[in-house]
């Protein structure tokens, strides 16, 4: 579980690096993308975890994102917990292949961005039209983050293989120590 937590937080830090290299267009008058490497990692991780662990990871990730990146409070905790519920609801119907991971990531990212846009709209912080939001922000965001899902699919398989190998090693050591005890 610790490995999964560290993996997700490392992916959020990578988001910060990508954001520094490709800053967000404040004027929002041209096409730009928002890096969601950490969010994609969170989605691909929590679908394999049990519900309590996934919920805790979502809350911690939301707090980390709020404090570290956006200087808000409870906004992304709420959004990430909602994503957790959505992913858990779809978990039974979505497999672990690359295509299904991409579809899950796209749907989750779109939901997350839509909720953020709705919050900003109803609080009066923005008057960007829906068409501009889709064209300038969502399109390239989804395209680029699909590329990230390719990388994350490979990395999460590596991580799961590492966890499996480590667990096998622990069980092997336990078997050996049990045999030694019997003697």
């Amino acid at each position, binding site marked *: 579980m610790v490995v999964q937590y560290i993996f997700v937080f490392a992916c959020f830090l990578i988001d*910060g690096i990508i*954001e*520094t290299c490709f*800053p967000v267009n*404040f004027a929002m008058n041209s096409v730009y993308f928002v890096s969601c490497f950490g969010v994609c990692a969170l989605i691909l991780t929590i679908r394999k975890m049990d519900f*309590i662990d996934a919920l805790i990871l979502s809350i911690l990730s939301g707090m980390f994102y709020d404090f570290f990146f*956006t200087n808000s409070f409870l906004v992304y905790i709420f959004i990430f917990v909602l994503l957790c519920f959505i992913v858990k609801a779809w978990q039974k119907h979505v497999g672990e292949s690359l295509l299904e991971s991409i579809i899950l990531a796209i749907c989750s990212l779109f939901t997350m961005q839509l909720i953020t846009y709705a919050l900003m709209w109803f609080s009066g912080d923005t*008057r*960007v*039209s829906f068409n501009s939001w889709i064209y300038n922000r969502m399109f390239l965001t989804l395209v680029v983050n699909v590329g990230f899902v390719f990388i994350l699919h490979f990395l999460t398989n590596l991580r799961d293989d590492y966890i499996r190998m480590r667990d096998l090693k622990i069980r092997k050591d336990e078997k050996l120590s049990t045999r030694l005890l019997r003697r």
Partner: protein
Amino acid sequence: MPKITKRPNETARFNRSQKILIFICIILLIFGFSTRIMGGNAASESGYDLFTMLRYSLIEKPTRTILNFSKDISNLWNVQSENDELRQEIASQKMYKSELDDTKRRLAELEALQGITSNDQYDSIGATVIARDVQGWSNVMTINVGSNDGITKDMSVISSKGLLGRVVEVHDKTSKVQLLTAEKTDSQVSIKIELSSDKSTTGSLETYDKTTGMFTANIFDSTVEIKKGMKVVTSGIGGATPSGILIGEVQDVEKLYNAEGVKIQIKPAVDFNDFTYVSVLKVK
């Protein structure tokens, strides 16, 4: 009679790791509530400063250092020609400085004669942008100067090209700047359009239209003739913003037939995509 046996202990709902993590979540939530709801106190400011400086030192500064290093290497070939251009500019700077000093002296004499004061005198405090909202909704950035450096609320912030925004929140070592592109803003900037060398007209900057990428402004005098390409600067009315700071140039003019005034579209002078070094203006 069947023997009643005690049920073995049921498996705990949460294991040890989960209990520790839930405890951490509760602590962080309490911390978040205490710094947010009781905003403006030292704990809130130090918490914000801590996270901002942590993020800047862990992520942004190393990344920018690497990016700047690679950019410098690629620019090496142009250094010679840039140096020659800069040497010529420096040579003419002395002449410009003496002209400026002479103009300022004459202005001060005239003001003293007429008994008026102008607010175009200001000190400039250099700063670096250390944090921006990752999602880009709030149009607020953080700079690395605060009350310890003499920054106060409502000071204007400029880049090398023109007016960027104003300071909305001040902490000890950092400050938050709201950009002119913010759709939700409490104050409007008063502007001046230079119609000719000795004539100008005033107005106010209203909103920023994200669709067109232009500012919308209202000019109070409908009799003046405003043309495309005219420079728009701050007027200094109100005292918060010094006069003469470039905002942009006129792109489109629309006369309001049923109301007093003229509505203009202004193309910003500043590129809001990317800026690192800014200056905060302290009006004298």
